[in-house]
């Protein structure tokens, strides 16, 4: 499977080692399986509850966003980089930026969109959104394992 440039580790030398744990295309139908696989990998890497459950929640929200707004599918890459578990969700939709994530949580009577990505950014130790190599977006979210 091709790894996009934006998903490849940059540089060399003192960079932490990278281990690929999971690469999976997904659609809405496959999201329960994706959650299981992410949970399995996170447990194997030593990410304990409740952070493991929160990481699975964040991944599901980002993947679900790709399904809903980027043509119904996407690709997920999960890897271990140093003391972080990092997940990339790559889609081929119209692309988007962090501006779509509300700074403050909308009230329950407020706008119905944006809460999933807001939650993903809140529970992740790191979340960035970049343009894909040819089109779409690459959302990167990471949590520290220890």
């Amino acid at each position, binding site marked *: 499977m091709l790894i996009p440039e934006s998903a490849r580790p940059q540089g060399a030398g003192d960079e932490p080692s990278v281990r690929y*744990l*999971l*690469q*999976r295309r997904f659609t*809405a*139908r496959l*999201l*329960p*399986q994706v*959650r*299981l*696989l992410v*949970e*399995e*990998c996170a*447990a*194997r890497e030593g990410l*304990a*509850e*409740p952070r493991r*459950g*929160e990481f*699975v*929640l964040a991944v*599901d*929200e980002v993947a*679900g966003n790709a*399904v*809903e707004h980027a043509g119904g599918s996407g690709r997920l890459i999960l890897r271990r980089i140093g003391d972080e578990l990092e997940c990339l969700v790559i889609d081929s939709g119209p692309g988007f930026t962090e501006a779509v994530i509300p700074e403050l*949580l909308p*009230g*329950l009577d407020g706008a119905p969109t944006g*809460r*999933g990505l807001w*939650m993903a950014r*809140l529970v992740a130790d790191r979340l960035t959104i970049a343009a894909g190599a040819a089109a779409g977006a690459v959302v990167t979210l990471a949590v520290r394992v220890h």
Partner: protein
Amino acid sequence: MRISAGDSASDRLIPVHRMRPGDHAFVSYDDDEIRWDVLTAFTRLGLARGERVIVFPRPGLSEEEVLARLDFPNRTTATARIRGQLVLSSMRRLISPDPAFTADRQWSRLREETTQAVAEGYTGLRAFIDMHWVPDLGADVHTMMHRESNAHELFKGRPYSEICAYDRRWFAPEVLTAMAEAHPRNLLEQLGALHTERAPDGALRFIGEADAATKQPFLTTLELALVQGAAAGRLVLDLSRLHFLSVGCATGLLTLVQEANGLSRVEVRGDLVQLRTLQRLGAASISRLTLSEVTRPC
């Protein structure tokens, strides 16, 4: 999604993710694709938790097919197989050299396997048993049923868990009903499923996964329960057997509870992840809502 009234069989229903050492579970299937869901989840999560996993697949299936299913889409299970953490076996092999099945022989061998797994450093043993071994060995169904109904000692104080998978196309309905009753745990048949029931104390209990695909039935059931609960003035929502609660479902829950003016109190019971999700989404702003933590097994 099915809604039941809290009969004793559904009261023991859990998603496969929640299987823990000491659990003895029943699952049934009639679809040759869906049946892999429970097996692969049980196997993968067991390996990740440091347990040894023995799979007793349907006799006649090739090892290549079973391993290909377990390995998809990454090959962590292949590594486990090489180092002996994952074992494919058969009931015939387990009870060997005895030619005929007896409960005592099977229990004895499973106790030995558990002891050996622990001695080798694993945190426990889990076994997935496709019950097609019964016709394969020419065993008496009633002997098998007696074994299943009297296996409590095998699980007591021992890090052993077991799933018994029954093909609804082969076993008679009365056998399936009796076996569902005989097992302390019953499993949802596939990943991503959502089941709702009334607990014995009247709480509305959700089981499985509340995600984008099950959001509509989740919210419809909740809305009906809130209307019905108005007469009593209070409602308890039990999320403790829900393995996944999405932001969309959690937001919908909070919105419906906020609008439920006929109720003076709504209590949500859930694990730490679920309660944190609800708190982060604004649970504290709803005065009639209280959150109670139910400890989730690790």
